């Protein structure tokens, strides 16, 4: 702690802070541009000037940049000082000389940091009469809009993009008055985290291009805290609505999870909610086709099928909320409930959960991943599977080098000095995966091999750490020495981390990762073990229990069941098409609840339109084991309602007693917490619907929300009453509590004078730290104090390429591999075309070249695909884009002949 004087009053501030951070943390309104809490200080914009005094006798003082000056013990500064204030106003005036003042047509207007800072400094009238410099803008792809004339040269964009996110195709060009931020040539920004430029840019140079198609000002949006559904990490988001449709996704800060940043899939995948694939009406099969049916009739139909029916089974979903899954489980009974994961997926997720539960390694949060100082990634391409981890790992490789800059006494927030001292030195990061990954440029060493060989490397590392772990006797010399190098790096680290997951469809890979973690833990190290999860609620679905898909199929096959309720799940992605067809054809009644018109929905007899994430309330369990609540941003139109509500109606139709006592989300949560002890703590994920602040519900819309009295005037001139929300403490209105709701109920960040996302500073208990009141979410899995269990011992045999067959391995793509986001047009545009990849040697053997058609035969089905050459793929392996080409089915790796066409 340090004691500093600000305008003749003293304050206690944290040690190792700049004056700017200290002042913002104390709640002062001190303007800034180039500083960003995640990027540190560079002193480029001169906006945060304050007067600093030598001691109490110094009356003259001198101007300093508060972002570049440490808040050292006894520092005396003045923010109000007239010189400092006029200097700051002058800086804005200078920056505004070339700014087009086009706020009315600018997408940033109303949430623009430049607007806020201009007002804050008191610069009101433009005095220059010179012509403004203008630029030609670039098309930066389907996600980001570029409008360079608005630029104020703060350099945040290139600092974030290049230094923080590792991108190399955005840069600053030219000099002086002509400085231009963009690409060397027009084209799509290649970095997977480019979308954060929208929030990094303090004005409207980089804006959300998808929002542009259905633009709404921030003040006119109705918002709710949400959780991303496009991978298992559970990044916190803000979902925003106007006129009954989802308009955009913004990052919602969670100090333990996503911090300030999202990946582009998470930010731009939301458009599936608005898409053509949505089911909006209740559909029933009539004359062999699904046709709209009034909702009441559908309930009647359920009333004919469900009561007394002893042959109903329910298939849950790893992408549906705990509440929806639990409602289905209650409707059909636990023994007739199936988790909805593929057989292999269910097996691997159970294995991972077991490992995390047993310890000794603890699963770290994303913010803990960021400060790991030696990392092994085993069998995952994190950028494409759990993207936000990749951004965290780019910061983790700076941890060891920053220990060196600590010794030089360079404060960590002094960003440019730290980077100059570090240069290109990176801490240990080892990536073992079947193919090249997008993070390889940050890696100390990479290892590319078939899944079994990846596992063997992992087992060998564990053995090098602890001789009690099983050895891999016949390991090749190169892999052996790499294993020893990795073991040594992990062993000498303070916060080592192992990352693995199910992407290689290999239990051995997961077990090997667990062995490495156990080896480190046994040596007394505070090791983290992070697993990626296939879907947004995979871990939650697993904690809920329920058999795998084969068991469900068997129940119908053996005649124990004939009525199937499928919740938010496309079975064709989980099992081979033939098996799913057999199952759905054999069942007498198939009832699907979903928001998208999937092939599974197409086979159903009754399809009930469900609310997507922004239209529903519920809880998801992230891969960290963190239960997080998401809330409706709006009530969906037409027949759409939340899945668990459909299920309550089904219970009522079936004459179940629970239907009487369940009417709100809290009722379902209470029953769930009571019924499943592993999930008991989810009640703590967010306050209940009874929560009030100053006697009020929390407003979903900002104070300035406009047009409410007239927005439905085309239908009825009388303004309807805003809808009630019995399920949460949030109100569908701007009326209600606005200031500092509990973090898990914060629908948007706004503070007087701070309309942009920078208002976040006012919501944190310390800058870059937790939100006031604690970061949202509750961890469900903690390892026991004393470790038990032992090393896994089944080391696989080395991978042997077969003479005329190839092992088909899914290769993941951030855009295209995930089921929901690939329905979003902007994401679909960036998804790869189908391909089958082999290495050059195998291509020569097959006598094919890139682009030639090749045939894959799998379970009696022939697939034709164009060949792609991936020089880095191991011999004997063929890669295909997961999700883009469906060869998975079983989730198990399959061998196939490949024939040239």
């Amino acid at each position, binding site marked *: 702690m340090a004691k500093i004087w600000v305008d003749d009053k003293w304050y206690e501030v944290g040690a190792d802070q700049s004056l700017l951070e200290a002042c913002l943390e104390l709640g002062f309104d001190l303007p800034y541009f180039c500083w960003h809490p995640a990027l540190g200080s560079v002193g480029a914009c001169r906006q945060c000037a304050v007067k600093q005094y030598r001691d109490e006798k110094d009356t003259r003082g001198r101007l300093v940049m508060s972002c570049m000056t440490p808040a050292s013990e006894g520092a005396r500064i003045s923010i109000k000082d007239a010189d400092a204030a006029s200097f700051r106003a002058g800086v804005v005036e200078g920056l505004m000389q070339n700014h087009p003042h086009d706020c009315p047509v600018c997408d940033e207007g109303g949430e623009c940091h430049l607007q806020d800072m201009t007002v804050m400094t008191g610069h009101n009238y433009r005095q220059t009469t010179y012509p403004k410099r203008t630029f030609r803008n670039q098309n930066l792809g389907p996600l980001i809009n570029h409008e360079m004339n608005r630029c104020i040269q703060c350099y945040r964009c290139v600092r974030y993009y290049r230094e923080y996110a590792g991108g*190399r*195709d*955005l*840069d*600053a*060009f*030219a*000099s002086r008055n002509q400085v*231009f931020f963009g*690409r*060397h*040539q027009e084209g799509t920004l290649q970095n997977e985290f480019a979308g954060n430029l929208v929030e990094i840019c303090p004005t409207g140079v980089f804006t959300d291009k998808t929002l542009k198609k259905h633009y709404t000002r921030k003040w006119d949006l109705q918002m709710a805290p949400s959780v991303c559904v496009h991978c298992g990490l559970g990044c916190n988001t803000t979902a925003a609505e106007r006129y009954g449709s989802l308009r955009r996704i913004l990052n919602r800060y969670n100090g333990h999870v996503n911090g300030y940043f999202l990946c582009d899939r998470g930010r731009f995948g939301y458009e599936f909610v608005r898409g053509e694939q949505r089911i909006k009406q209740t559909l029933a099969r009539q004359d062999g086709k699904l046709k709209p049916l009034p909702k009441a009739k559908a309930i009647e139909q359920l009333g004919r099928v469900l009561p007394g029916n002893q042959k109903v089974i329910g298939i849950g979903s790893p992408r549906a909320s705990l509440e929806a899954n639990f409602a289905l489980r209650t409707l059909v009974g636990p023994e007739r409930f199936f988790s909805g994961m593929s057989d292999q997926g269910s097996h691997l997720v159970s294995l991972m959960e077991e490992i995390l539960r047993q310890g000794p390694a603890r699963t770290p949060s994303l913010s803990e991943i960021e400060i790991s100082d030696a990392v092994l990634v085993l069998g995952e391409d994190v950028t494409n599977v759990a993207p936000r981890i990749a951004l965290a790992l780019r910061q983790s490789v700076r941890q060891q080098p920053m220990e060196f800059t600590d010794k030089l006494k360079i404060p960590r927030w002094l960003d440019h000095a730290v980077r100059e001292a570090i240069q*290109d030195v990176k801490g240990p990061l080892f990536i073992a995966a079947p193919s090249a990954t997008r993070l390889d440029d940050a890696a100390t060493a990479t290892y590319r091999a078939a899944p079994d060989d990846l596992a063997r490397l992992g087992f060998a590392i564990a053995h090098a750490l602890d001789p009690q772990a099983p050895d891999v006797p016949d390991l090749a010399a190169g892999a052996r020495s790499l294993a020893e190098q990795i073991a040594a790096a992990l062993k000498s680290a303070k916060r080592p981390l192992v990352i693995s997951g199910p992407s290689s469809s290999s239990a051995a890979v997961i077990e090997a990762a667990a062995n490495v973690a156990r080896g480190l833990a046994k040596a007394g190290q505070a090791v983290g073990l992070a697993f990626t999860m296939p879907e947004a609620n995979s871990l939650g679905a697993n904690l809920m229990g329920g058999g795998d898909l084969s068991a469900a199929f068997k129940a119908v096959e053996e005649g124990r069941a004939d009525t199937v309720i499928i919740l938010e799940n496309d079975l064709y992605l989980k099992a081979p098409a033939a098996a799913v067809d057999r199952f759905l054809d054999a069942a007498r009644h198939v009832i699907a609840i979903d928001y998208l018109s999937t092939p599974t929905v197409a086979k159903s007899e009754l399809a009930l339109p469900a609310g997507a994430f922004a239209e529903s309330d519920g809880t998801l369990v992230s891969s960290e084991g963190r239960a997080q609540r998401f809330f409706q941003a709006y009530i969906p139109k037409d027949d759409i309602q939340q899945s668990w509500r459909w299920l309550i109606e089904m219970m009522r139709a079936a004459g179940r007693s629970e239907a009487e006592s369940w009417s709100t989300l809290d009722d379902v949560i209470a029953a769930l917490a009571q019924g499943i002890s592993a999930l008991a703590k989810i009640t703590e994920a967010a306050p209940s619907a009874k929560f009030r602040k100053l006697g009020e519900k929390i407003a979903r819309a900002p104070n300035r929300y406009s047009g409410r009295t007239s927005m439905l005037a085309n239908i009825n001139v009388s303004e309807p009453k805003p809808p009630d929300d019995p399920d949460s403490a949030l109100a569908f209105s701007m009326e209600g509590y606005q200031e500092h709701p509990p973090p898990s109920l914060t629908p948007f960040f706004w503070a007087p004078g701070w309309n942009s996302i920078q208002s976040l500073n006012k919501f944190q208990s310390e800058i870059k730290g937790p939100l006031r009141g604690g970061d949202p979410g509750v961890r469900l899995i903690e390892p026991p104090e004393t470790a038990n269990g032992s090393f896994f011992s089944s080391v696989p045999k080395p991978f042997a390429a077969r003479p005329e067959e190839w092992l088909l391995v899914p290769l993941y793509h951030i855009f295209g591999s995930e089921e929901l986001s690939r329905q979003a047009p902007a994401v679909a545009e960036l998804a790869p075309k189908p391909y089958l990849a082999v290495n050059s040697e195998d291509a020569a053997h097959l006598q094919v070249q890139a682009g030639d058609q090749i045939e894959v035969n799998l379970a009696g089905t022939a697939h034709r695909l164009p060949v792609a050459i991936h020089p880095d793929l191991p011999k004997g392996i063929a890669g295909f884009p997961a999700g883009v080409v469906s060869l998975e089915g079983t989730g198990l790796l399959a061998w196939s002949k490949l024939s040239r066409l």
Partner: protein
Amino acid sequence: MLSPEERHEIEAEIAHYPDKRAVCIDAMKVVQKHRGWVSDEALGDVAEFLGMSVDELDSVATFYNLIFRKPVGRHVIMVCDSVSCWLMGYDRVRDHLTSRLGIQLGETTPDGRFTLLPIVCLGTCDHAPAMMVDNELHRDLDAEKIDSILEQYK
């Protein structure tokens, strides 16, 4: 494609530094020496050779006014517009050059003989006004002198 000669000269520069990206300016000067300017294609080749992205290299290229990213004439005239030359008659020099050559600053004559560019300070303030043609400095300029200088460059 970089010519063998260009490669050779760039490699000679690389030998002086621990990191080959450090020679990016010299590498572009090598290319410019041989070709007069640095095209997008040449920029891509140099970037690849030095392990940089084209964007990174272009960021450096566009910062420097003496790396030409557009074609220039056979001879480049750089006329000083700094304070001493300005006091001593830069305006007259510029006007004479533009009327004589029939081009404005930043342009190239239609026959490709001259490109006319402004520059800040040639370090010869005691002999202002001054200009540089290619690598030769010309001082104490007046209209007559300029005419005879231009005659030297075909």
